[in-house]
């Protein structure tokens, strides 16, 4: 990831053109297919969010699914309330079954669309921010960040399952109303909805790329290499780490909101260990160092899953596990690494000069 490298930007533009023009055309503007692909794009967004912290700063958030899940529940709460206006007290049906007296205070704000959209970004960011301050002020790094975030996510998922009265428990939130935007009732099997999701992904990628290409990205890469040295240069390492965790969480929450729209329910499986592992796999396959390639990885793996899991119902997880091990060992930079290597070879072959003149002295 070089800040003056224009290929990253070209790759981004190509990616945007493909998902905006190529994909709808290839899918023949079919509502069902577009909905499926919109799901992949939402997942691409959370993969890109993970790449932002893992690929640049080397902070592996194994609990990325937690922030994704929070975003998806925020959206689902809004849609559930919209679907429950006919019920006594405007309460969701499952609360009635479990004898909740009145709509709990923490559900009430989600009647408002704007509060929901803001909360879907800010709530995950706040949760991640607290975790980050807790960890990074204590200078926790490396594998311990991975373990702490993983443990936190499992605990959060347990809470969501346990507090059935308020969260729908194991079933999650189902029976949602369609999203009502000003002047548009969102039909998730339509081309405009596909463009909504695609637009979100492209904007999120742009935000991420701007951050990575700013000096913040440079500092984050320096943190990955030697955080201690950076402190003696005057950088508040924990502040940078917290920032990237919050941004990554906000984007993951955003992706979670879209995911609820696509699938029309929210489930505690969105914050499960296996889902978090899946996100890591997409990133590893696409290439953790590049936001665009992490997204591509998510799309490719999910496409493959969509096509192959019909053929090998049982074996898909096995294939995925083996693929993951293979990439971790032999292609730690993922498809992005392959692309970079190919590009280098292409560029170097016409002129046969060594890449870096090294002078001994």
């Amino acid at each position, binding site marked *: 990831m*070089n*800040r*003056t490298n224009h290929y990253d930007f070209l790759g981004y533009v190509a990616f945007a053109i493909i998902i905006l023009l190529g994909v709808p055309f290839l899918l023949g503007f079919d509502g069902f297919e577009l909905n499926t692909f919109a799901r992949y794009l939402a997942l691409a967004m959370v993969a890109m969010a993970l790449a932002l912290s893992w690929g640049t700063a080397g902070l592996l958030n194994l609990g990325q699914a937690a922030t994704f899940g929070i975003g998806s529940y925020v959206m689902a709460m809004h849609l559930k309330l919209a679907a429950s206006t006919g019920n006594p007290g405007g309460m969701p049906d499952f609360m009635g079954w479990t004898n909740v007296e009145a709509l709990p205070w923490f559900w009430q704000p989600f009647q408002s669309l704007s509060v929901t959209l803001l909360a879907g970004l800010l709530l995950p960011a706040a949760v991640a921010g607290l975790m980050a301050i807790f960890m990074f002020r204590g200078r926790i790094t490396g594998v311990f960040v991975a373990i702490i975030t993983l443990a936190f996510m499992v605990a959060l998922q347990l809470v969501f399952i346990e507090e059935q009265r308020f969260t729908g428990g194991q079933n999650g939130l189902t029976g949602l109303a369609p999203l009502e935007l000003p002047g548009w009732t969102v039909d998730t099997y339509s081309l405009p909805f596909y463009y909504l999701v695609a637009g979100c992904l492209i904007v999120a990628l742009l935000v991420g790329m701007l*951050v990575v*290409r*700013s*000096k*913040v990205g*440079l*500092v984050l*890469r*320096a943190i*990955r*290499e*030697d955080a*201690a*040295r*950076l*402190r*003696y*240069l*005057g*950088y*508040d*390492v924990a*502040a*940078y780490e917290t*920032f990237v965790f919050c941004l990554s969480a906000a984007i993951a929450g955003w992706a979670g909101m879209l995911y609820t729209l696509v699938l029309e329910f929210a489930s505690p499986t969105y914050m499960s260990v296996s889902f978090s592992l899946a996100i890591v796999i997409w990133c590893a396959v696409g290439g953790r160092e590049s936001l665009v390639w992490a997204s591509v990885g998510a799309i490719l793996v999910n496409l493959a899953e969509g096509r192959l899991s019909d053929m090998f119902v049982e074996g898909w997880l096995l294939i995925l596990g083996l693929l993951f091990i293979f990439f971790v060992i032999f292609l730690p930079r993922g498809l992005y690494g392959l692309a970079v290597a190919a590009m280098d070879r292409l560029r170097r072959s016409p002129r046969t000069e060594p890449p*870096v*003149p*090294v*002078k*001994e*002295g």
Partner: protein
Amino acid sequence: MTVLDIQNLTVQFGGLKAVNGLNLQVQQGELRCLLGPNGAGKSTTLDLICGKTRATSGRILFDGADITNLAEYRRARHGIGRKFQVPSVFKELTVIENIEIARSRRPGLLAALTTFRTPLRGRVKEVLDRVALTDHIDSKAGNLSHGQTQWLEIAMLLAQDSKLILMDEPTAGMTIQETLKTAEIFNSLRGEHTIIVVEHDMQFVRQVAQRVTVMNQGSVLAEGTIAEIEADARVKAVYLGH
């Protein structure tokens, strides 16, 4: 004007007092050499000033502010820069990116979010020219030779532009020519910057030092010009006499 004032500083590791009741004053613009036998507490003193190690007791005043308990990055923001014994550049970053990282007048998040490229002009060009790395700005630091790596680190130090520069054996592993060039750079830095150097190479010390402080067993044994120190019988006994 006294820029660094260390008062009765002590640090204890287990039962060992690595620095023991140290008193040290350094004037603005001075280049001070710290000498002493192994285990005298020279590097630990630098660690205490830059915040790598926290003092058990005593005070460190810098520019009139008490920095004894500040975090490392806050001390750096006060204007204290450190060069470590092992060359520590960011190997995965390019030369110019290393300089950009080191140029940390505005190390905050907001400033960093709005900075997008490092133009090769002004101070950046000046320091890179000075260490002859201008042609290598897009090379990864990890691909530089050992000598170039040391120059890059000195360039980073120049780019950081700290008021007080702490250096631990800056000439270790350098050739004679490189040592000379380093001495020249140091001599040009004094005045504007205050420098504390831990160094074993007496040749180098004679070239750069105005005042020398000799440490032994964690406190100051003697202080004076290089000639006074070389004539001092106590110093001879513990150090030079060997």
